[in-house]
C-alpha cells in the first residue's frame, strides 16, 4: 500500500508546502522508507558534485580548433595550391578564379571541393550559383550570406565548368571575380571555373 504523501514529494522538494504541511511531511518521512528514498534520490541529484574535466580536454579542444581553422582557410588565388592529402598521393590544384577558395577534402578521389565567396553588398533575399556542374538548377546552388559576401561549397569532378550567379531568382549575372568568360549564345557571358587535377 502506497502512502498518500508520496504525491507531494515535489511540492516538498520545491519548498511549496506551508510550514504546517512541511512539518507534517517531515514527520511522515521518518516513518516511510519509500518517501525517504525518493527524497534522497532528488537530494542526491541536486548535490551532485562538480567534476574536474579530464586533464587532456583543453589540449584536445585546441587541436580541434587548429584543424577547424586549417580547413576553413583554404588557399588564396592566385597562388598555386599545393596540398598533400594524408592518405592519397599529393594533389595539385590550379585555382583559376580569384575569390574562390579551394579545399581538397575528397570523399571519393575524383571529387574536389570548391568553396566560393562572392562579395555582394546590398540586401538580397537569395543568391545562387548555377552551372553545368549542378544542372543550372537554382535550388541546388543556394549560397549563404556571410556579412557582405555570399558563400557556398560545391563538390565537382575536375574539369572546366561554366556558371553564373542568380540573384533573387531573377537577375542572372556572371561571377565578377572570375578570370575567364565565354559567350553563352544568349548574348550573355558565363563565368568559367577550371578545376584541373594533374
Amino acid at each position, binding site marked *: 500500500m*502506497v502512502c498518500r504523501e*508520496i*504525491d507531494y*514529494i*515535489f511540492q516538498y*522538494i520545491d519548498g511549496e508546502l506551508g510550514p504546517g504541511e512541511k512539518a507534517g511531511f517531515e514527520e511522515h518521512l521518518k516513518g516511510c522508507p*519509500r*518517501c525517504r*528514498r*525518493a527524497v534522497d*534520490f*532528488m537530494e*542526491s*541529484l*541536486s*548535490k*551532485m*558534485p*562538480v*567534476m*574536474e*574535466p*579530464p*586533464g587532456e*580536454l*583543453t589540449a*584536445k*579542444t*585546441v587541436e*580541434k*580548433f*587548429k584543424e*577547424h*581553422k586549417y580547413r576553413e582557410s583554404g588557399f588564396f588565388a592566385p597562388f598555386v595550391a599545393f596540398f598533400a592529402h594524408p592518405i592519397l598521393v599529393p594533389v595539385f590544384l590550379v585555382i583559376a578564379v580569384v575569390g574562390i577558395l579551394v579545399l581538397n577534402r575528397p570523399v571519393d578521389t575524383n571529387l574536389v571541393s570548391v568553396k566560393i565567396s562572392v562579395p555582394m553588398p546590398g540586401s538580397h533575399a537569395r543568391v545562387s550559383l548555377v552551372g553545368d556542374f549542378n544542372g543550372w538548377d537554382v535550388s541546388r546552388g543556394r549560397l549563404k550570406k*556571410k*556579412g557582405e559576401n555570399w558563400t557556398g561549397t560545391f563538390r565537382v569532378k575536375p574539369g572546366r565548368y561554366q556558371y553564373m550567379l542568380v540573384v533573387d531568382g531573377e537577375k542572372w549575372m556572371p561571377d565578377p571575380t572570375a578570370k575567364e568568360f565565354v559567350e553563352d549564345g544568349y548574348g550573355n557571358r558565363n563565368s568559367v571555373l577550371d578545376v584541373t587535377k594533374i
Partner: protein
Amino acid sequence: MELIKAVMQGDENSFRRLVEKYKAMVYNLAFRMLGNASEAEDLAQESFIRAYKGLKGYDFGHEFRSWLYTVTLNACRSKLRRKKLSFFSYDCAFSYGDGERRTDEPGSGKDELENEMSARESEARLRRLIKLLPLKYRTVFILRYIENKSYEEIAKHAHLPLGTVKTYLYRGQKILVEQFKKGVE
C-alpha cells in the same frame, strides 16, 4: 571582452585560455545531460568549436558565459536526439580512476570514502533519471534539479516558453513519482 575578441580573430592562445576558463561549466553540463564521461569530453570539445564558429560577427560581452551554456545544451540535445535512446555506461559507475576527479578531495580517508560513495550515488541516480525521462522532460529536469537553474533561466537556455518549462517539469515529476511508488533506488 578582450579575450573573446582575440578568439574571434583565431588566436590559439586566447582560445586555450577560453577553454580553461569555461571547461568546468561545459563539461559538467555535458556530463549531466549525457551521463557518461567520455561522451561528455567529446561533447565539450564540440561545444567549444561550435562556439568559435558562432562567434563570428557577434559581440557578447558579459553574455558570453550564458550563450556558451546554451550552445553546450543544444549540442547535448542534438546528440541525444540522434542517438534516440538514453545513454549510460556501466564502467563509469564503478571506476574512480578514469579521468573523473572530484573537486572536493579532503584529506581524511573516511571522508574521502564517503564523498566517493556519494558522488557515485549521484551518478547512478543521474543515469537512472536519464533512463526514466524522455529527452524533452529530462532536459528541463536536469536544468532545474541538478543545475539548479530558475524557470526563467531554463526557458532562456532551452528556448522554451515559460509555461512549457513548467509543463515539462510537471510531467517529468509525474513520471518520477510513479517510479518512486514502485520503490526506485
